[in-house]
């Protein structure tokens, strides 16, 4: 409850409540993030033979546990859908405008959510080809992939 008498201006007080949290990764995410640290993108063989990336511990259709059959995918991939972020927040992967996109890496049947550093929304298109930009210092975290960047079209390829 606040009194209603007047004050000259409104003032804000900012607070951050923050604490570190650790979770164990299990056999599949551990492999995936170890791969990122080593500059590899790793998927897992699904029961139907397709490759899931990001890898999961379970067949998404049946819920059955998957054998730990890991497969390298990418590094390039195709944007299957995207959304342009005009005003990045403190927690976003890039401090300038970028796209969040689902990226189907070459060899995978599913798509990975990540950032595409395209410069402007006009450069974004579903179906565009992208390739990772890795951080120099990698620690086994999803942000070891700093972002994906548009891949120039190869000769003979059409948009």
């Amino acid at each position, binding site marked *: *409850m*606040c*009194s*209603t*008498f*007047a*004050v000259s201006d*409104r*003032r*804000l*007080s*900012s*607070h*951050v*409540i*923050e*604490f*570190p*949290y*650790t*979770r*164990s*990764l299990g056999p599949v*995410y*551990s*492999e995936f*993030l*170890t791969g990122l*640290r080593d500059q590899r993108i790793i998927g897992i063989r699904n029961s139907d033979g397709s490759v899931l990336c990001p890898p999961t511990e379970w067949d998404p259709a049946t819920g059955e546990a998957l054998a730990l059959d890991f497969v390298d995918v990418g590094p390039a991939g195709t944007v299957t859908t995207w959304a342009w972020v005009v005003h990045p927040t*403190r*927690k976003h992967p890039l401090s300038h405008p970028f796209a969040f996109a689902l990226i189907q890496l070459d060899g995978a049947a599913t798509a990975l959510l990540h950032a595409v550093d395209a410069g402007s929304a006009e450069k974004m298109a579903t179906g565009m080809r992208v390739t990772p930009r890795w951080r120099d210092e990698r*620690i*086994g*975290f999803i*942000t070891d992939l700093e972002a994906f960047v548009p891949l120039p079209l190869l000769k003979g390829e059409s948009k």
Partner: protein
Amino acid sequence: MTASLPDEVVDPNAPVTNMDYFMALEFEEIICPVVQRYADGLLAGKIIGHRCPQCELVYVPPRGYCPIDVLETTEADEVELADRGVVTNYTVVTPVQYYGQEETEPFAKVSVLLDEPGGMLSLQDVLEVPVAEVRIGMRLEAVWVPEAERTVAEIGNRWGGAGGCILGWRATGEPDVSPDQLNDRVF
């Protein structure tokens, strides 16, 4: 984005088995008028409280109400408080080195009952007094941050304090107050 606990040694080639990250809640709030006036007072070197018109207890930081009498208090109930007082209660904290802990040595947080017209500031820092010498009844005076360096950025609607304006409290050297005189005045 990731957190490393102090002294944690990471083998750069070992498999990554854990993920460290921050749980974070970031928010802004509009400071309510009562607290704004309290903060403005601190910037000017004054501690402002509210005295309940019914029970006459002094609340600092002011809240805009007396929770005992369930009465609204307003600017009309403002009182300028003393920046001297007496320790009514204290806690010695032995810092555990959790993430974000900046203290390394035991330190005391004291409740200071201000001289007339009264009011209680809790969780205050004591300056220049060894922890072992902090005691109930000790007379203290505020050490203000130089006016140009004062800040009220950390004063919110719920945790007021005086940090950013009052550096801490130092012993005045006056004789101690007998704890008997502090009965019913601890909070």
